[in-house]
Each structure stands twice: as structure tokens, then as C-alpha cells.
């Protein structure tokens, strides 16, 4: 069926992208694989009937966040030093086998705890009585200005604060003789 094929393709893109974000040794390549993974998540939203969410995911992530990440990567590139100020060898910034081992152990513990605590809550709901997919944009718009109006306003204030905060934090300052 079409929906199953879409789900398989999107899940493959999502998980493959996420695995390549984990494995990749190049930060720029990792960012590109993150973009692939976010496209896969947008496809998963589409198979769930969430058309507005899929469009928002594409616009915000592919158009905003990943471009911002790429700009930050290009602005902060440079020669990596392998010794810190105490003369001790630093861990390489993209990780070693030891850090990956620790990450694998922690993720195993996480998965054990989550499966142990949340699996009693899990019920599998039957597939048969699903309603047909229809456009959700109008309903989401109505919900945003009626039930969730306060959260909507607060998120607008949050975005304004993030804008001003990012501009203030990353503004270059002169140490001596400038307008400090």
C-alpha cells in the first residue's frame, strides 16, 4: 500500500540520518545527515495525516535551523588544538571509541529504564476504526486562538526574547576603548 511504503521510506530516512549523525566524523556531513533525518520526520508526519505539522517541520527546520547550524559551523571553524592549557591531551572533538562506549552504555541504561517503566502503560490500539485523513489546518488555527491562546501568546514572547537575546549575546564587544 502507498501509506506503508511512505512509512518505510520515511522511517529509513529518519533512522539512517540519525545513525549517520552519530557515526559521521565530519561536522558538516553530520549537519547534512541531520537534514535528511528531519526530512524523514516530516514524511512520518505526512503519513500520520498531520499535513500542517509536516509543512511546518520543513519550513522551520530545513529553512531555518539547519541553515543556522551551517552558518555557525562555518563561523566557528579553525585549527583544533589537541592539548589544553594544563598540557593534558584533549579528547578529539568528534569523539573517540571510549566516549562512544560510554554513550552506548548510557543509552542501554536509558532504554532499559524506559521500557521497564513505560511498557505497562502501553496499549496497542486497533487499526480498524481510524478515521480518514483530512486537512487539519483550519482546526489547528481555531485551536491556537481558542484553547491554546495563552500558550500561543507566550510562545510569541519567547520568540521575541530569543531574537533579542541572540542579537545581544553574539554582538561583538570591544574590550578597551570601545563602546563597552
Amino acid at each position, binding site marked *: 500500500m502507498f501509506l506503508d511504503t511512505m512509512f518505510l521510506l520515511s522511517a529509513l530516512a529518519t533512522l539512517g540520518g540519525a545513525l549517520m549523525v552519530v557515526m559521521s566524523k565530519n561536522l558538516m556531513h553530520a549537519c547534512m545527515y541531520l537534514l535528511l533525518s528531519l526530512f524523514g*520526520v516530516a514524511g512520518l508526519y505526512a503519513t500520520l495525516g498531520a499535513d500542517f505539522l509536516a509543512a511546518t517541520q520543513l519550513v522551520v527546520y530545513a529553512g531555518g535551523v539547519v541553515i543556522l547550524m551551517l552558518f555557525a559551523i562555518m563561523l566557528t571553524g579553525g585549527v583544533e588544538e589537541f592539548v589544553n592549557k594544563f598540557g593534558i591531551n584533549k579528547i578529539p572533538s568528534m569523539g573517540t571509541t571510549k566516549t562512544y562506549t560510554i*554513550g552506548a552504555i548510557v543509552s542501554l541504561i536509558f532504554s532499559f529504564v524506559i521500557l521497564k517503566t513505560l511498557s505497562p502503560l502501553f496499549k496497542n490500539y486497533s487499526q480498524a476504526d481510524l478515521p480518514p485523513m483530512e486537512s487539519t489546518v483550519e*482546526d489547528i488555527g481555531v485551536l491556537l486562538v481558542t484553547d491554546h491562546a495563552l500558550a500561543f501568546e507566550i510562545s510569541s514572547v519567547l520568540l521575541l*526574547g530569543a531574537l533579542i537575546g541572540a542579537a545581544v549575546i553574539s554582538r561583538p564587544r570591544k574590550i578597551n576603548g570601545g563602546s563597552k
Partner: protein
Amino acid sequence: MISLSSYLIVSFALFLCGIVVIIARKNIIAMLLGMELILNAGALNFAAYTRFVNQNLDGHVMSLFIIIIAAAEAAVGLAIVIRFFQIKESIHIDDAVELQS
């Protein structure tokens, strides 16, 4: 064939990938990439439960707020990273030890 549990398995794997990225990497921007993965896993869970359990659209609104918060977090986090690079000439996480001693 596709059910709620398949979406939950995908979301769980995405979350674990994010955890491994945050722990294994020592680069601040790479850790922010892992955070994006984790936020996406949470938003995917909201959308999946909305589709398969109760068809009211509150879960979609919550996913929307998660996307908004991820965008704001990325903007402020990358501003902090760029400022840190201007001061320290490095984006290694072990160079951020000013508050430790």
C-alpha cells in the same frame, strides 16, 4: 500493518541516537544537533498518539510548540556558541570550565 508501536519504535530509536550524540561528542554544535534529534522524537510521539488514540488535535498543537521551542533554543544556543568561540577560540566542551573551580 503500521500501527502505533512502529511509530513509537522509530521515535525511541531517534531519542537514543540523540542521547549517544550528546554524550559521545565533545563539540558544542554537534551536541546541539543531538538535542534537535531528541526534540523531534518527542514531537513525533505527540503526533502519533493524536492519530491512533484520540483524534482531537491538541497533540498537533503541542508538536507545533515543540518545533517553536526548538527554533528558539537553536538560535540562542548558536549565539552562545559563537560568543564562546570569540572568547576562547575553541568550541570544545572541555574548554568551558570557568564555573568549575
